């Protein structure tokens, strides 16, 4: 059985508009995917595609309007907070902005010690030993224990954030843009650390990022999102070398490559992401799609199997096969 199974996740937000009208923003429109133990799934897409909303639903910072989030055999999508609390240990999150993700009034030891106090019955000696162990695990020294977040470098802050999540001994770690606030040299360090921890602890990641090069580096499988839906999902190599959905293709083509010899003449995707308020009737990508035909405007596009473990939501590129 999969470690995490997400089915038909939907989430809307009310936005206040002038004149007393409230409008509905359709942030997630039926997101489904599974994550197997030990693998890393990447969620990619541009701003407003719903990747962060998905993350927030997974750790139940948000309550989805509809759908299921199976963690093992437990559906946490609609659990009330008290029932959810003991389960939170199994599913942790690392946040985007290291300096904002640590309570400025707690020392490193307090921050890492908090989940230990919440979820484990430890004596003071045991707890200290565990804190030391965690610090060493993420490459911080014992002397960092009594520091406050503002006394740490940004890289060190992110390590504390990781250690705090690991203190719960989670089965699944959601990484929400963990490297996008970091400079190149610090970013490399954090990515290496995450890889190392995955190897040594056998932990499962959901890695959310808009940075496709990082995703290619660290993920086993990738899901590409657009307007609150997954448009393509599959093994990383497959997605990056032969994408099936025109959006994935365009997205990959848009990422600049640090090699002047490859200066491109690739086509550039025109237009901007459409509004989440008036969702298109047919294919979500219709307005910007370079290969669209008239039928796309009215035909909704569900994911179709495009190969082993590879699905894409485009009936032009992925013809229906007899046996699915």
């Amino acid at each position, binding site marked *: 059985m999969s470690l995490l199974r997400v089915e038909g996740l939907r989430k809307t937000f009310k936005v206040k508009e002038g004149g007393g009208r409230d409008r509905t923003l359709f942030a997630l429109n039926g997101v489904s995917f599974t994550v197997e133990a030990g693998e890393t799934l990447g969620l990619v897409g*541009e*701003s407003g595609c719903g990747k962060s909303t998905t993350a927030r639903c997974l750790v139940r910072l948000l309550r989805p309007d509809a759908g299921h989030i199976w963690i093992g055999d437990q559906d946490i999508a609609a659990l009330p907070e008290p029932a959810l609390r003991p389960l939170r240990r199994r599913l942790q999150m690392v946040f985007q902005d290291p300096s904002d993700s640590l309570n400025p009034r707690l020392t490193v030891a307090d921050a890492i010690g908090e989940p230990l106090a919440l979820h484990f019955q430890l004596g003071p000696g045991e707890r200290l030993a565990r804190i030391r162990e965690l610090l*060493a*695990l*993420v*490459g*911080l020294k014992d002397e960092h224990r009594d520091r406050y977040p503002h006394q740490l*470098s940004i*890289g*060190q802050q992110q*390590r504390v954030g990781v250690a705090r999540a690991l203190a719960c001994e989670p089965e699944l770690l959601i990484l929400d843009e963990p490297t996008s606030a970091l*400079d*190149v*040299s610090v*970013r*490399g*360090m954090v*990515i*290496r*650390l995450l890889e*190392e921890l995955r190897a040594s602890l056998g932990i499962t990641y959901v890695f959310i990022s*808009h*940075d*496709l*090069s*990082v995703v*290619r*580096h660290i993920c086993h499988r990738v899901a590409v999102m657009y307007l609150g839906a997954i448009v393509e999902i599959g093994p990383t190599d497959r997605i*990056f070398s032969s994408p099936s959905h025109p959006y994935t293709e*365009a*997205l*990959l*083509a*848009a*990422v*600049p*490559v*640090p*090699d*002047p*010899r*490859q*200066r*491109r003449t690739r086509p*550039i*995707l*025109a237009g*901007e*992401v459409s509004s989440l308020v008036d969702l298109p009737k047919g294919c979500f990508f219709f307005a910007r799609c370079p290969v669209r035909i008239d039928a796309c405007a009215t035909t909704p596009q569900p994911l179709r199997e495009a190969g082993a473990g590879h699905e894409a939501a485009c009936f032009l590129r992925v013809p229906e096969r007899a046996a699915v």
Partner: protein
Amino acid sequence: MAKLLRIRDLHLRFPTFRGTVHALNGVDLTLGAGQILGLVGETGSGKSMTAYATVGLVPPPGRITSGVIEWNGRNLLRATDAELQRLRGQEISMIFQSPRTSLNPLFSIAQQFEIYQRAHGQAKGAAARAQAHGMLERVGIPDPRRVLRSYPHELSTGMCQRILIAMALSGRPRLLLADEPTTGIDVTLQAQILRLVRELVASQNTATLLITHDLGVVAEICDRVAVMYAGRIVEEGPVERIYGDPRHPYTQGLIASTLRVDEQKPIHIIPGVVPNLLVPPSACMFRERCPIAAATCAQLEPPIVEVSLGQHARCHFAADTGAFAAAERQRAQLAGVRPQDLTV
């Protein structure tokens, strides 16, 4: 090629309550007409300050302590505020990172356009409106008439950046300073903006200084690249040379640690942290993180060495291929080290 802009030994300091921050520590930079130069470096390396210094807009309490900024043979550091102001917008224009906040929220786009046009004694009235309309069309804005009537909050980020580019280029400047113009913008939009900038500057033969931390962006549109570290340019040259054969250990580290979307490779780490610019290290600023640092590096300021035609590096060993083999070996070793064991 005629040099349009020549910055020599520029020093910039920020007195703060904790001490003086040595933001720029001898920047040397040249830019020829029509060239696109990428200025790359990490946060706090002094990229933006170099651009601000060029147009005389260093935010207070920053102060240029020494150096020369030569524009067409004239030293801008001696120019009066009025002279600089005439220069800005007409000969040198600038665009910034956050397009939405760079436009005044209380004025319509047409009003803002008009203020800029008037500042440069350009056309007035109907002619001015026609010109604004034309510029907006040129930067690929559909329905310019509606956009001119709009206020910034009614427009998307991409639209705002196009408008800023249109304004910046409407005076046909000879130099465009672009300070992280696509940072924080989605990749598909970034691709549009970069292409737009490249086409426009090519058609007007505008020299461009593109400030970014993204080596991919530089490779995409720049002719030359300058790498900054701790308030100094450590290496500079044609993009093909720098990406193909970087000779400063920092440039090498930077390129090695940049991940690519088109291939999978082991990730490299530059150990250590950037120096504290309140007390900048003497001699070579990079030596504490450098895989090939030797005793000299702590004693002597590294000279600028021309390592190949038009490629300069500020390193004692820039011309020493033997040293580079050693650096290469060290990088290979680092790849096997657990990240926990590296100093942070």
